[in-house]
């Protein structure tokens, strides 16, 4: 099947490196486009990078060549110097000499290696930068899934845009209407772990809600601006019950963090009485920060 010199033969047998470089590059590209998780996107980006590095290294390969470090007979200095009593090196003058073109073929091409060596280190630096941005996004939005982040941004924009136009609606309606439709709005204030955001968000939300408050003014009369905190609290509780999938995912870290140590401290002594000493167990199950042991 492969004997008749088709393109399959060329790609699969003689140029497998080039084929694999294309395949890896496409895998990375597809991951960067289609994956929703930002960390997955970054792994795709790294695969893309290494595919390009593979390509560069592949074009620098020469058949039957050695690594780009001079053989001892081409570099007669330092620890590489060959003693002059051997016959072989007696016709070389002491010191390095210009390697002629027939010997140049014996070494692999150093130029792609140099270019790619710096590219790798810069690649990890940029990976760190991107991960820092991921952390920041997680602090702001409580998730690193791209579609959820986009949905949150969209909702925020949708809520904050009309507030520029209509500002003079009285605030009594706003608080109430907010209390009545929790499922759509209060995600950000409840889920975001950042310290600044929960203060900033309800304000814009209050403004925004004022525009869409026409229909639901049933309890609007009795509410004074004082009632704001209570209303916002009710929204937070409402958000936890709401069945939207993204919301439950977002509020997981705050809710999940608490019950875990309790469960653990209960479970541990019961099961591990034999396997570890009781003193160690007590220290392990205590929720204290790790201290350096000196």
């Amino acid at each position, binding site marked *: 099947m492969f004997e008749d010199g088709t393109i399959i033969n060329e790609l699969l047998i003689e140029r497998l490196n080039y084929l694999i470089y294309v395949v890896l590059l496409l895998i990375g590209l597809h991951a960067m486009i289609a994956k929703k998780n930002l960390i997955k996107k970054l792994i795709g980006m790294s695969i893309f990078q290494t595919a390009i590095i593979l390509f560069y290294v592949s074009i620098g390969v020469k058949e039957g060549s*050695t*690594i780009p*470090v001079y*053989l*001892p*007979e081409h570099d007669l200095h330092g*620890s*590489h110097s*060959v*003693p002059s009593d*051997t016959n*072989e090196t007696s016709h070389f003058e002491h010191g390095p000499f210009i390697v002629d073109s027939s010997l140049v073929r014996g070494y692999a091409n150093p130029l792609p290696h140099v270019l790619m060596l710096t590219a790798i280190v810069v690649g990890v630096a940029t990976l760190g930068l991107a991960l820092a941005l991921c952390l920041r996004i997680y602090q702001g939005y409580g998730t690193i899934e791209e579609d959820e982040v986009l949905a949150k941004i969209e909702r925020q924009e949708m809520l904050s845009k009309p507030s520029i136009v209509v500002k003079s609606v009285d605030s009594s309606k706003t608080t109430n209407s907010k209390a009545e439709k929790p499922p759509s709005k209060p995600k950000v204030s409840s889920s975001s772990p950042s310290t600044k955001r929960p203060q900033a968000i309800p304000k814009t939300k209050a403004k925004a809600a004022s525009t869409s408050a026409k229909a639901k003014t049933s309890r609007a009369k009795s509410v004074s601006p004082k009632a704001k905190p209570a209303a916002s609290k009710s929204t937070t509780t409402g958000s936890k019950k709401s069945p939207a999938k993204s919301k439950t995912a977002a509020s997981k870290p705050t809710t999940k963090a608490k019950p875990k140590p309790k469960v*653990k401290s209960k*479970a*541990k002594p019961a*099961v591990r009485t034999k396997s570890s000493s009781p003193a160690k167990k007590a220290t*392990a199950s205590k929720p204290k920060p790790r201290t350096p042991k000196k």
Partner: protein
Amino acid sequence: MSLDQTMFIPVLAESLQTTSSPTPLQFFGILLGLLGLFFFVGTAVGMIRFPDFYTRMHAAGKGDTLSTMLMLSGFGLVSMEDLSMGSWLLFFKIMGVVLFIFITCPTSSHALMRAAFEDDEMPMTEKDLKKPSAKKK
């Protein structure tokens, strides 16, 4: 050419080309390498077949350490075909690698097991084997 200590790649290439008639030392090295490969297959099979994290780490920790050490020692023996200065140097470098693998590999498997222990991963008992649901996990 007798003092080319740092250039070990051509040395290896030459030694590989002359494997048509291996010296007894090289033959012993090849034998060690094959034995290491055997244990490595055992490690891989254990990683797949064992049901539980701890038993899997047992296979990985022991088999991996032993097989890597055996293979590296075999490699060191294969590379010293002429007992020259360079091949001795290479042999001692490889033995240094073997020493560090002997130190670090059990430590890493200990750290993994300890992490699993802290995370309340329970070892599998005979009771779990009888339950049909335990087989999936």
